[in-house]
């Protein structure tokens, strides 16, 4: 008898049935719905003759090229946010330090230099992993302090110098390889950063949805206590999330340093907040345990799309900031409202 009265799992609850159709559409379509809206808006503007060259393959390739770096950094950051730890603010200095170390070590060869750079990035991630994962320091404050310390180390060792590859002593082929990180194009279409972004996105998606770690991360992010009591090693799970964020930041550092051809303390400035923007617009909630990596890449794409359309219209950089900020709050607000009306609010 009791089983007959039990509600089947896939029947939505009352709050879901009462929720508006709008909320449900927002919930399903997510960030790609917004992307489609932007593309339609761009197409209409082009039809009206306000902008030119929007609906071209070239333009869309440009947009993707422009957001590849952001997409990579955001994909790692998403794991931190997903684990319920807001953000890793040490990302910019991780990027800078990775780049500097790599350029500094280029004369030992390309592969050792890149590996050393990635290792330094992961070292910062490991410190974050221990302090935030194990000792549960506040992630925002700790990673902020970490970025201070890293910046201090960079300034102490290299002062304000920009580190160039040494053309006199370094192997020119090594330098060409390093420059190629940003510039290499496969089949003259897909650039290496875009390829990396797609690879990281697929790997991240697989990790988050198809592995034990992903399931543990989701549980830890949405309810850490429950996770601990279910036998999940939450300390390790959160630590790995910070390592992943540091890894993608290090990869991003290699790309941005290859782009500017110079290692410097200011490389990567602003990428912590840019990545958080992409992550949160992409549907990963700050409360943790909700969202997807594919959504995050969509978030980065929407940011690129928005910038592209505004630049084509001819809106100045500074007014773009204002519009970007407003859209950011709006998108996240709508998202939160949709979740709340579906009865899935946990913030």
């Amino acid at each position: 008898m009791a089983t007959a009265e039990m509600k089947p799992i896939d029947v939505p609850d009352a709050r879901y049935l009462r929720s508006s159709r709008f909320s449900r559409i927002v919930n399903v379509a997510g960030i790609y719905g917004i992307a489609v809206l932007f593309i339609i808006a761009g197409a209409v503007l082009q039809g009206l003759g306000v902008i030119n060259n929007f609906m071209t393959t070239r333009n869309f390739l440009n947009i993707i090229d422009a957001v590849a770096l952001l997409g990579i950094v955001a994909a790692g950051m998403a794991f931190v946010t997903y684990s319920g730890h807001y953000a890793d603010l040490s990302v910019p200095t991780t990027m800078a330090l990775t780049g500097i170390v790599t350029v500094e070590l280029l004369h030992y060869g390309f592969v050792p230099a890149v590996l050393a750079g990635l290792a330094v990035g992961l070292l910062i991630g490991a410190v974050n992993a221990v302090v935030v994962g194990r000792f549960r320091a506040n992630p925002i404050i700790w990673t902020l302090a970490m970025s201070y310390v890293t910046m201090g180390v960079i300034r102490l060792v290299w002062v304000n110098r920009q580190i160039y590859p040494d053309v006199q002593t370094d192997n020119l082929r090594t330098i060409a390889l390093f420059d190629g990180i940003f510039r290499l194009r496969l089949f003259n279409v897909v650039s290496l950063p875009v390829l990396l972004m797609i690879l990281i996105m697929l790997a991240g998606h697989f990790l988050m949805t198809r592995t034990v770690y992903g399931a543990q991360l989701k549980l830890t992010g949405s309810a850490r206590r429950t996770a601990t009591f279910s036998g999940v090693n939450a300390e390790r799970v959160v630590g790995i999330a910070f390592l992943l964020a540091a890894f993608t930041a290090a990869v991003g550092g290699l790309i941005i340093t290859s782009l500017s051809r110079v290692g410097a303390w200011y490389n990567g400035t602003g990428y912590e907040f840019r990545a958080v923007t992409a992550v949160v617009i992409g549907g990963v909630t700050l409360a943790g345990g909700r969202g997807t990596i594919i959504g995050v890449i969509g978030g980065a794409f929407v940011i690129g799309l928005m910038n592209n359309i505004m630049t084509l219209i001819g809106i100045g950089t500074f007014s773009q900031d204002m519009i970007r900020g407003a859209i950011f709050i709006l998108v996240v607000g709508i998202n939160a409202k949709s979740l709340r009306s579906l009865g899935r609010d946990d913030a």
Partner: protein
Amino acid sequence: MRRSERDTTSSGRTLAWVERYRIFLLFAVIFVFMSVFAPRFFNVFNLTSILRMVAMNATVAIGFTIVLICAQLDLSIGTVITFAGVVGLSLKEPLGYALSVPIAIAAGAMVGLFNGVLVAKAKISSFIVTLGTLTILQGAIYTITGGNTISLSTPDAFAVSDFLAGPLIPLITPRILLMLGLVAAFELFLRRTRTGRNFYLVGGNRNTAWLAGINTDRYLIAAFVLSGTLAAIGGVFFAMESSAATLRMGDQSLMYVISATIIGGTAMTGGKGGVFRSFVAVLALEMLYTGVILFGLGNEVKIFIAGLILAAVVLYEAYAYYRHQREIGKRPELIRELAAGTTRAHAAVDAASDGAGGKA
């Protein structure tokens, strides 16, 4: 404090005392160390200059502390500082300071209101909202100024600037007096009035506060409005004293104020901390920075030391919390009994009940 109740040993009590007054100890250590060792540190001129330098950040830290006590975050303070400075100075020519300064402060309050309403009513995370406002204001600042520093060079602007910078009595200039007044006022407000203490309740546990009949939304909004207002006051008076508003004048403040507030002992989890503590922490940090420069060390050492201190404080707090969490629910006396075996456990229970009886 809870820890002092638990630790009854004298070393435990000392630790608890150090923990409780750590920011004042830190301040005293830095002050004495710098006065003794740093060249040209302990004199009226240098001390005045330190006070003048903290005047802006200490004012901003008041508002930030209140927001943090409410368990929220305000990332927009840095841009509000710049925004208020830019608005106040760019409207000075048509309107005069008498009107432009109130407008600038009101603009800061409006930004705070915007943040507060979105956080409290639209229920968007304060991290997101203030990050968005930060971006919007950055655009607004550049749009207003066209990317240039606003500097005033009229005689009356210089007169105001001289008045704000000139000492009334040794160590105290009008702007420093304003800062001290605001710190004292808000410290008393938070500690001694019911409204002020309610901020701690809202931050400590929002649901409990609501059940206790406190209009929590109103307090959250008020916290953000105060934060915006105080950031604007700090920014506009700083700009008036230097007769110039640069586009990046508030950029350093966010990190500075966050560090100082945390080092001062205000917890990010809310419900704990105080305005005066944040003020002392701002002062301690500035003395440290000035000392580092006086020793002839560069800016890079300053950044490094700032990072180390913040890291040490956060690490210490996290570790203490970690140990505390591990000990919660543990009953060492039971484990000892098990280890000692049943017979001796009975003896231990008897001894314990005797001891308890003896005390009673």
